[in-house]
């Protein structure tokens, strides 16, 4: 125990750098995207660095990672990086190596180039049925299906601006999808089913009660068990009770599915960051390829591609044309569920006569 190593933290960043990053740290002057997936960064001294970005599955095996390492060893001085959206970036310092690298990537077949500029880049996502205990949907499956469908937008620059799609498999939103151009969110739609026979043994009843944001949970005696009951009228299926108490699972084949949200952004470019807003409240889970979800996302994306001005993010486009037009051009249904009724709802109502017919 004495010589146990703890609290050493991660390797220092510069241990991971190749020499040319060390040498040019902080000296970058500008960049250019040479073609989809290929970036050039130039320093004040004219040094040039070429980056090839490849699609990452995020969920991968050491075998795939070893493939990546091999390419990095061969072309990139044994170095590469991951982006904040789980893409893989290989860097080389001259155009000859660049061409060789590109060829090697093409040959690999599992490392598609793209994800730069006005494209659909990789989908930030979460665990889904692969690892988590609270998901309403799978994560990796829908991501694969959507990226397959939108592949033409991954390795091209034909959109008006960047489109960032994110997925989170439950309302905990580990994908932090709430500020995405398009967000895919797993939602439950049934109140927890309660295991009265075990609840008191497994959970602390006061904690379970306190966990509910709408105070839907009350203590109750059921079949002589000390337990709780849920006022279904008040339940909004957030799952926080289940997080605190395993005897209250929400997952249900018919209840669960996907909600789609649109128009969020994170950058401060032009407009301030924005939340994504509800576009489609519910699409059933359709494994293995989530066809309706895939189709609906394409519909939204194409409406945006056709309607937006260049440099206009999804949310900026919608704000310009108005939500009434968004629902018109996408032919999505506007339902009562689109109307906010949570704590700040009043700020979303339209206090104006300004609207489009």
């Amino acid at each position, binding site marked *: 125990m004495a010589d146990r*190593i703890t609290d050493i933290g*991660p390797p220092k960043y510069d241990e991971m750098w190749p020499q040319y990053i060390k040498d040019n740290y902080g000296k970058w002057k500008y960049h250019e995207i040479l073609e989809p997936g290929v970036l050039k960064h130039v320093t004040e001294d004219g040094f040039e660095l070429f980056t090839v970005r490849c699609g990452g*599955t995020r969920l991968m095996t050491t075998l795939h990672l070893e493939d990546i390492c091999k390419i990095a060893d061969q072309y990139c001085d044994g170095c590469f990086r991951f982006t904040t959206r789980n893409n893989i970036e290989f860097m080389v310092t001259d155009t000859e190596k660049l061409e060789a690298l590109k060829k090697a990537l093409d040959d690999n077949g599992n490392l598609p180039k793209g994800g730069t500029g006005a494209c659909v880049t990789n989908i930030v996502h979460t665990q889904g*049925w692969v690892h988590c205990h609270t998901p309403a949907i799978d994560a990796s499956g829908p991501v694969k299906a959507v990226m397959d469908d939108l592949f033409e937008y991954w390795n091209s620059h034909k959109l008006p601006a960047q489109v960032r799609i994110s997925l989170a498999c439950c309302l905990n939103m580990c994908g*932090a999808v709430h500020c995405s151009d398009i967000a895919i969110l797993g939602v439950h739609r049934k109140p927890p089913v309660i295991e009265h026979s075990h609840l008191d043994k497994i959970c602390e009843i006061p904690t379970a009660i306190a966990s509910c944001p709408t105070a839907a949970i009350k203590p109750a005696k059921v079949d002589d068990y000390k337990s709780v009951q849920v006022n279904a009228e008040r339940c909004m299926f957030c799952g*926080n009770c289940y997080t605190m108490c395993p005897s209250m699972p929400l997952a249900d084949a018919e209840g669960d599915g996907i909600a789609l949200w649109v128009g969020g952004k*994170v950058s401060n470019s032009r407009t301030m960051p924005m939340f994504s807003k509800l576009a489609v409240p519910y699409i059933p889970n359709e494994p293995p390829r989530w066809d309706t979800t895939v189709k609906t996302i394409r519909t939204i994306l194409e409406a945006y591609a056709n309607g937006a001005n260049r440099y206009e993010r999804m949310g900026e486009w919608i704000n310009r044309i108005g939500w009434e037009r968004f629902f018109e051009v996408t032919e999505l249904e506007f339902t009562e569920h689109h109307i906010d009724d949570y704590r700040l709802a009043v700020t979303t109502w339209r206090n104006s006569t300004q609207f489009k017919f």
Partner: protein
Amino acid sequence: MAKMHPTPMLDELEKGPWPSFVTDIKRLAEAGKDACADLLGQLELSYKDKEGHWKHGGIVGVLGYGGGVIGRYSDVPDLFPGVEHFHTLRVNQPASKFYKTERLREVMDIWERRGSGMLNMHGSTGDMVLLGAFTEELEPIFAELTAKGWDLGGSGSALRTPACCVGKARCEWACIDTQDICYDLTMEFQDEMHRPAWPYKFKFKVDGCPNGCVASIARSDCSIIGTWKDDIRIDQEAVAAYAAGEICANGGAHGPDTKLDIQADVCDLCPTRCMSYDGKKLYIDNKECTRCMHCINLMPQALRPGTETGASILVGAKAPILEGAQMSSLIIPFIPMEAPYEEFKDFVEKMWDWWDENGKNRERIGELIQRKGLQEFLKAVELEPDPRMVKEPRYNPYIFYQEDEVPGGFERDIKEYRKRHAR
């Protein structure tokens, strides 16, 4: 080769141009990893049932750490014994995720031997997430990792693994040393990361500029975002080259043939309309600029951030549980960010103290500020109110005054009042 389960549905996910995680995992299963075969089997069952098949949580970990490991057990272990235990380890990534292959192979090697061989590169917070270990392997894995210079990241009611954008390592716009800040905070607060002692989780993320490539404003309790105080640097020759169509727009983000219309694309889309172009030169009224990055993004060869750099500090982003999702809110408009970041850390300590003292169980700092008021928070961190902290001042008339602000105080004598006013 491990015992493969039939996975007709998952097999559908081997089609299509995007790399297939199914194909990849099958490959490792075929190479002998039971965990991989059983994971696919259980996932196939989930696809059939449209319900996940993991049990709720499970407290496992490594000695002396309160986090870094997420326990996970199959709820159909008889069918899929290879994933009966399927705990994850969060391995703290190197800041901005550059890897030397030789170093990465240290982790891969351990993981291939002792774990499932499956992992996430990376988790949403930023860690390398090693997916699927049996309980008995956790300690050995930890020992081997630390021996090689790797450590676990955060989980639970603790500091979570900080993350940052690529920054000065490869980006011309980084106004701060994102990686150094990220690493420095990670090292400084190892204890806070490994021994959960707070009301709830706390996240740092570091963006080099307002473009926000690590999405800190949406995903971190404390967002550190590079910015500058002086003027945008202009290279008028490059402006002319853009005007002449010699350089394409937006660094080529729309293809090499996309010409820039300086007036329409830059000046007219500048949110403060503080730019003007007379056909020759581009002018910026920098006093009115809000450093949104748009013009710089569109003309990377002509415009650059200023040189008097530092960070804006925003606080409070989080996912929706419970009060609804929040973005971070501007708390410190500008703070210099030079190592060892003392001024910033002072702020952080004050913030944590206040949160620790006042936060309810599972209350994020953003929610606490919402509950107590931004004023209270500012007092705690000893900052003066500034109009930059709000989009707009209050519109409701419900102002709380303290007794000492009002002459005569709050105590009054009804008898005196009644002398002036009959009942």
